[in-house]
């Protein structure tokens, strides 16, 4: 590991000033991804600015009736928060489905959004990888890719974003606030992650040196009837091979409002807008749920070893929406 300097920040402007837009410096949240990547040499910062002491560790009501979650709130505190569990259950479930109790106690909301892909070639510095080393190639396309993307990938990178939390945030229309030396800014989660294209090493629309200060969830009655379902290769403590976050409001047997996002299928949490349009106004039954999933997945371009994800996602959508429909009917 490269030697590095360490500083602690105690307020937001101080953190931004300490980082000073230095491309060789990194903010340190819980360190559960960054320290791991520093050990393997994927990340080689010259300086760390520790943000865990920032006064951003609260979940508070937002002005419009929504919820504002500070960037240093731990994943555990987020999932245990009564308002999150009551009004946005899919978010609590998504966070609880990730990592382990120990990791969730350490991990922060800001760090979770910015965690890097689990693609094995990305983690192995002896292997080429366009994301880690632009222009070096993508061995995953012809190699091991059983858990890689089927939606929105490019010929330059087929990695997925591994966050469970982010999938629920995408479905619930969250936005991310940040701070730079020039002032505060906000990005809807839908615009937060950049399309892959020819630049898989550029992952987010955050300006250089920006500190994530929090995430805001808008008020949304449908969100109270929401759910997250994750499929993985063992029962717990594993990344998803496919997941769905959904919120559903059914009236008179028809879909009045629906939010749907997919995880582990794309370089970012995948908001399924095509499926949402197909669902809205239609009958709330398994047949229509399946047709809407198919409409979304028509854009899927699976590789030789991950075609199973298309069927998996279709079945997951039908299962999760059917459960939610049954619950609203009660």
């Amino acid at each position, binding site marked *: *590991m490269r*030697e*590095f*300097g*360490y*500083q*602690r920040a105690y307020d937001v402007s101080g953190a931004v000033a300490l980082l000073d837009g230095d491309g060789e410096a990194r903010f*340190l949240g*819980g*360190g*559960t991804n960054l*320290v*791991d990547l*520093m*050990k393997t040499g994927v990340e080689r910062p*010259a*300086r*760390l600015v*520790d943000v*865990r002491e920032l006064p951003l560790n609260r979940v508070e009501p937002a002005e419009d009736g929504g919820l504002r979650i500070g960037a240093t709130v*731990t994943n*555990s505190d987020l*999932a*245990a928060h*009564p308002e999150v*569990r*009551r009004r946005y*259950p899919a978010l*609590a*479930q998504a966070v*609880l*489905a990730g*990592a*382990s*109790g*120990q*990791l969730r*106690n*350490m991990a922060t909301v800001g760090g979770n959004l910015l965690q890097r892909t689990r693609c094995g070639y990305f983690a192995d510095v002896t292997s080429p990888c366009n994301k880690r080393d632009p222009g070096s190639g993508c061995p995953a396309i012809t190699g091991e890719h059983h858990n890689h993307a089927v939606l929105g990938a490019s010929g330059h990178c087929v990695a997925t974003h591994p966050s469970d939390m982010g999938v629920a945030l995408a479905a619930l229309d969250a936005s991310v606030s940040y701070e730079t030396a020039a002032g505060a800014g906000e990005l809807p989660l839908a615009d937060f992650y950049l399309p892959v294209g020819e630049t898989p090493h550029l992952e987010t629309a955050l300006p250089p040196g920006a500190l994530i200060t929090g995430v805001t969830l808008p008020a949304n009655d449908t969100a109270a009837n929401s759910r997250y379902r994750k499929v993985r290769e063992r*029962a*717990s*403590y594993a990344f998803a091979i496919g997941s769905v976050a959904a919120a559903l409001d059914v009236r008179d047997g028809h879909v009045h409002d629906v939010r749907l996002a997919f995880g582990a299928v794309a370089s970012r949490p995948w908001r399924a807008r095509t499926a949402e349009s197909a669902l809205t106004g239609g009958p709330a039954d398994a047949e229509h749920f399946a047709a809407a999933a198919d409409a979304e997945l028509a854009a899927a371009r699976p590789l030789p070893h991950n075609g199973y994800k298309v069927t998996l996602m279709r079945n997951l959508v039908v299962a999760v929406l059917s459960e939610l429909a049954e619950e609203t009917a009660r």
Partner: protein
Amino acid sequence: MPPSTSSDLTLSVNGEKYTLTVDHRTTLLDALRERLEMTGTKKGCDQGQCGACTILLDGRRSLACLQLAVAAEGREVTTIEGVAEGERLHPVQQAFLDLDGFQCGYCTPGQICSAIAVIEEHAAGWPSAVTGDVRPEAGPPPLTPEEIRERMSGNLCRCGAYVSIVQAVARAAEETKGAAA
């Protein structure tokens, strides 16, 4: 001027203060084992995947292998060496002994630290990934074997002592509840 790559710091471990100079690359796990000679906390994978290095940081279970020592300054560290009260074992330790919650014992310090926190998290009403209804109105889920397995899933055991680990955690939770009532 390049930033300093080491720091003098004070770590608070099991109620005692220790002053040492660390290279910033030192994890809390290596500081405990190599510098403070507290080898109860084990190194399994060194990358967050096994739970052998589980300690309590300000009372919350955490992985010492992904925690930089320098970032632990000002926080209270509790290791397996600090969970008993003098000669009296912690109820979780006693339950692991009574019910054979181990075979080789390598994962055990991490299992015990994790289980102590699992019992507290459950008592505080935290749901888990197998909790059917996470809404607070649903009340805390009973600590069933399924709940214990999910909550303990961050601790792997290569010997596969899981069956008795789950029994030990269940018994310790019952006793803790009884003692609090």
